[in-house]
């Protein structure tokens, strides 16, 4: 305690003398978990990426404000044809150990990135890449195996590491003590307790204002994380529970940042013939959609912090969102009528699986859904699953005939919609018409044509009702009111570009 106070004071004096502005101080960030690795391409877990990408930077990034695609270590890219990308790098950037950030570093990082043995968690976005060649010191040409419309998404996930240091220490040690080009440098790490970073005085871009050090604290319990924010122990607390979010909102000196998440909550209604159940009948699946009062769930259980889905799995700002669709209205009478039409005038009994502790409020939303279904005669046998077992069953197609899930693919319509392609390992439907649309969208490089394909797919999914469309999630970040311009994104990420601590 005393030691850290002294170092803060010392650092403050030094930086005040150097810059001659307001003294900089330590920013304390509380996340759920300690990072497993600080090499951003090591995992896709947001806790790891938030910390790691303060040190190691990518070629581009997607700014959550307007979901804008912005350059970082690259200056620009151009598509020479459908399968060739030319990337121009930012000149004059160096890693903090002095190695130059140039075409050689990018070629090295690219080759690590496309090797699924080294980056298994990124295999889905790195798969289209074939090879890379150095054009000159600041230009590289990447070749793709096939046209890949979400190319920007892939370029924003290729993190650049210094080849000399990497080859010296290896992948594993690099993740424990990374060197990068970012606004912060690794300082020390007491596992499960505190990870410290100091500001990089030679940073190529604009440094966050008023911050000379970041301390990352892993705080797994939701209520303790919010408590530490209230007491002033943390400046930023990520991933708050909704009840804590309401507290933060009420308090002076704290700010609540509520970010619509990429996670789409839904109830799987399996229509696969091997999962025999009344759900094989489309009318039953539509009836269940009419039976659930989604707005009541959003207004009450989520205290208004949920995004209505409008009968589709694409979010409103996403390419392919279909503005003509409206969700199934809450109409228990209509639901009962459809059930009767399908031959279930007295309803039926069905197994309903859901996780406990995997998603925010998973257990209570599932109970509420079950209560609403009971109103129209659908009696559920609820089966609660431990999160690990839940994920196993999801992938093994055992979450049938009915299950509550929240799927959060990366931000691209193809990555979202292909989860409903019959070849997908956890698709609980088999619709050749939908498969054809998904296959077409995957290859279509023309943006307008691609959008139309997905709008058609959304209309088809709406009618087929392979899921109960519930709501889009909202993530909560609590910050001290002194933290300005925090960029929090719907995938749990946040960034320090332009952040200020005043």
């Amino acid at each position: 305690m005393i030691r850290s106070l002294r170092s803060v004071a010392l650092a403050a004096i030094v930086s005040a003398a150097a810059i001659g502005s307001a003294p900089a101080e330590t920013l304390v960030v509380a996340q759920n978990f300690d990072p497993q690795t600080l090499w951003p391409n090591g995992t896709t877990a947001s806790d790891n990426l938030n910390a790691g990408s303060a040190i190691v930077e990518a070629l581009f990034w997607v700014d959550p404000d307007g979901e804008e695609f912005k350059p970082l270590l690259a200056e620009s890219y151009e598509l020479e044809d459908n399968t060739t990308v030319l990337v121009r790098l930012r000149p004059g950037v160096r890693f903090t150990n002095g190695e130059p950030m140039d075409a050689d570093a990018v070629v090295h990082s690219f080759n690590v990135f496309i090797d699924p043995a080294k980056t298994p968690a990124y295999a889905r976005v790195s798969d289209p890449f074939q090879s890379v060649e150095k054009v000159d010191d600041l230009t590289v040409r990447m070749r793709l195996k096939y046209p890949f419309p979400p190319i920007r998404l892939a370029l924003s996930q290729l993190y650049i590491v210094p080849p000399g240091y990497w080859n010296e220490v290896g992948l594993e040690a690099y993740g424990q003590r990374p060197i990068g080009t970012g606004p912060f440098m690794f300082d020390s790490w007491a596992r499960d307790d505190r990870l410290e970073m100091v500001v990089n005085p030679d940073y190529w871009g604009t440094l966050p204002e008023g911050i000379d050090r970041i301390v990352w604290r892993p705080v797994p319990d939701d209520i303790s994380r919010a408590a530490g924010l209230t007491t002033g122990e943390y400046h930023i607390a990520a991933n708050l529970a909704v009840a804590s979010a309401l507290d933060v909102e009420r308090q002076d000196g704290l700010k609540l940042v509520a970010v619509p998440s990429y996670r789409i909550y839904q109830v799987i209604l399996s229509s696969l013939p091997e999962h025999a159940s009344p759900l094989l009948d489309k009318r039953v699946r539509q009836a269940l959609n009419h039976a659930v009062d989604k707005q009541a769930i959003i207004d009450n259980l989520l205290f208004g912090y949920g995004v209505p889905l409008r009968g589709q799995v694409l979010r409103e700002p996403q390419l392919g969102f279909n503005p003509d669709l409206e969700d199934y209205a809450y109409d228990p009478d209509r639901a009962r009528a459809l059930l009767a039409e399908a031959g279930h005038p007295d309803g039926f009994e069905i197994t309903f699986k859901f996780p406990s502790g995997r998603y925010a409020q998973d257990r209570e939303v599932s109970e509420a859904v079950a209560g609403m279904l009971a109103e129209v005669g659908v009696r559920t046998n609820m089966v609660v699953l431990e999160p690990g077992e839940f994920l196993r069953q999801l992938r093994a197609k055992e979450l049938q005939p009915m299950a509550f899930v929240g799927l959060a693919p990366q931000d691209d319509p193809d990555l979202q919609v292909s989860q409903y392609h019959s070849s997908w390992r956890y698709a609980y439907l088999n619709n050749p018409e939908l498969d054809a649309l998904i296959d077409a969208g995957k290859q279509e490089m023309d943006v307008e044509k691609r959008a139309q394909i997905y709008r058609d797919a959304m209309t088809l999914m709406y009618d087929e009702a392979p899921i109960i469309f519930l709501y889009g999630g909202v993530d909560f970040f609590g910050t001290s009111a002194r933290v300005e311009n925090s960029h929090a994104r719907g995938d749990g990420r946040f960034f320090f570009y332009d952040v200020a601590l005043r």
Partner: protein
Amino acid sequence: MTDQPAPAPAAPDARPRGQWGLVFGRLMRKPAAIFGLAILLLFIAWALFPALFSPQDAYAQSLVRRLRPPSFLDRGVDGYLLGTDHLGRDILSRIIHGARVTLLVSFFAVLIASVVGIWAGLLAGFVGGTTDAVILRLIDMQLAFPVVLLVIALVAVLGPSVTNLIILMGLSAWPRFARIVRGSVLSVRGLEYVDAARSIGAGRSRILVHHILPNILSAIIVYASFELARMVLLEATLSFLGLGVQPPTPTWGGMINDGKNYLSISWAASLFPGIAIALIVLALNLLGDELRDALDPQLSHD
């Protein structure tokens, strides 16, 4: 306790046939025992006939009147005496319905644990030798094994159900009984009357049943009342970890777990099931203590 002249120690095997009647008579003279028994009987009645006692349907949800305080406070709703939970269900009715599974799971888990544990403990302590060594190793293995891991793995394989939960919780607790019983057996084994019984040629099982068991019964009863309380909490912890009894079936532990997320909005949802747990623990402990005293004739004079 004064230095009154000590009564002649009663030989345990000389207890009259009607000793249980005598014990009950002694119990009924103690207010603490009557209080404990009354609470226990009330909870058992709730468990047997929940519908008779519940003012509301324990499963009926209403999202518009959720997380309300007790009806006698501001914002309370008439007819919902202790308020409503996060899904707008009546807390009192859920506590009454929750008595069934909570008590069922805990009682049977302790029953399994005590039967297995007492048997193993007696065997180990009395027979000794290799039997003792083997049982001790089994006890160590079981005790040193993390219960959470055991439960996660087995629930994943066997599937979640009340029966599986009872068996798992029971099996996780047997070694504690065994250790206590074994320890007690070792400490009474050398006492005079056991030696005396052995010297007059009493068989092993006779010594076991007539001499050793009565002497350790009080320790077992006290411990069982503890274990019952622990089982109620273990079920709560398991539902905290997503491994408890299936919703929407109410259990007291599960209700605390659901309610804790809303502590800052409503204290009622977690406090009242907590009080129910405290009451059952209190009742069991009082009963355990008084029963222990009543069973011990040497203590009955003050």
